[in-house]
């Protein structure tokens, strides 16, 4: 498929140099897919951890289930090396 750009409402085919730049952008974007998926996962994980930070206050003793829940959240990215693995992650159930 030949690429084109639109400048002032006119379709203009990309030059060879512009096509090369587009190829590089697409390669860079594809290479960063796993990092972007992991970023989304970490944001959600960090949010869930924050919601249970109060469990660790000095006037509260965490149950073993609570400790396991937080550890499972902290470890949730361990061993993830592919996009498919990240997409298959299931978050632990909050006790």
């Amino acid at each position, binding site marked *: 498929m030949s690429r*084109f750009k639109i400048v002032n*409402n006119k379709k203009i085919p990309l030059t060879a140099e512009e096509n090369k730049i587009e190829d590089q952008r697409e390669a860079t974007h594809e290479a960063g897919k796993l990092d972007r998926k992991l970023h989304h996962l970490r*944001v*959600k994980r960090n949010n869930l951890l924050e919601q249970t930070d109060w469990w660790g206050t000095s006037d509260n003793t965490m149950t073993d289930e609570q400790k396991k829940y937080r550890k499972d959240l902290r470890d949730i990215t361990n061993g993830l090396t592919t996009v498919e693995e990240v997409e298959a992650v299931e978050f632990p159930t909050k006790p």
Partner: protein
Amino acid sequence: MTLVKVRSRGINLADTFAFSGTVSGAGDEADFVHIATTNGAGASSISFTSIGSHSNYMMYWRDVTTSGDVSLYLRFINGGTEQTSGYRWRVKSLKDDGNDEGAQSQSANEINCGYAFDNASSSKNQGSLWFSQISGTITEPSVYFDNSGKMNNGTFARSIGFGTSVSAGGVVNGFKFLLGSGTFTTGQISLFGIKTT
């Protein structure tokens, strides 16, 4: 002359008038001018380089879908040259599941003005972006923007943020919208010029 030729703040000198003589003067900057609307379907980028001379510009995009899970980016055009470096920006997405987030990397090559679009055909994005150069020449042009739509992790989100070019100088005389990768599947972008007072 017919009343339609008279604007609220002046007269359209490009019109034909039913009297003889010379009409002169540069006229007044119109309050609100629709400069162009572009249908970007299939395009790698959408540029506006004939933007006239206005104190403020507003860009509005709608029904934007993309061929990949990508962000929408903006570059300034200064003196006819596309600026490809020296950008600083920040974008934050407010997500319906409460897990708000910002872009994890900060590219200096362009401004992220619409974060992490979903690539489903039903996930249409809309947003607006504002730019001012009231003094005509500015050293660090900046924009602020707002986008709403579906993110590529399945949540609905509103992205807000700002961007600045620390390397561009002079008058901004064009804007270029592009994606992190791929092409616009659908979408229109409109450009308006707006007078300050």
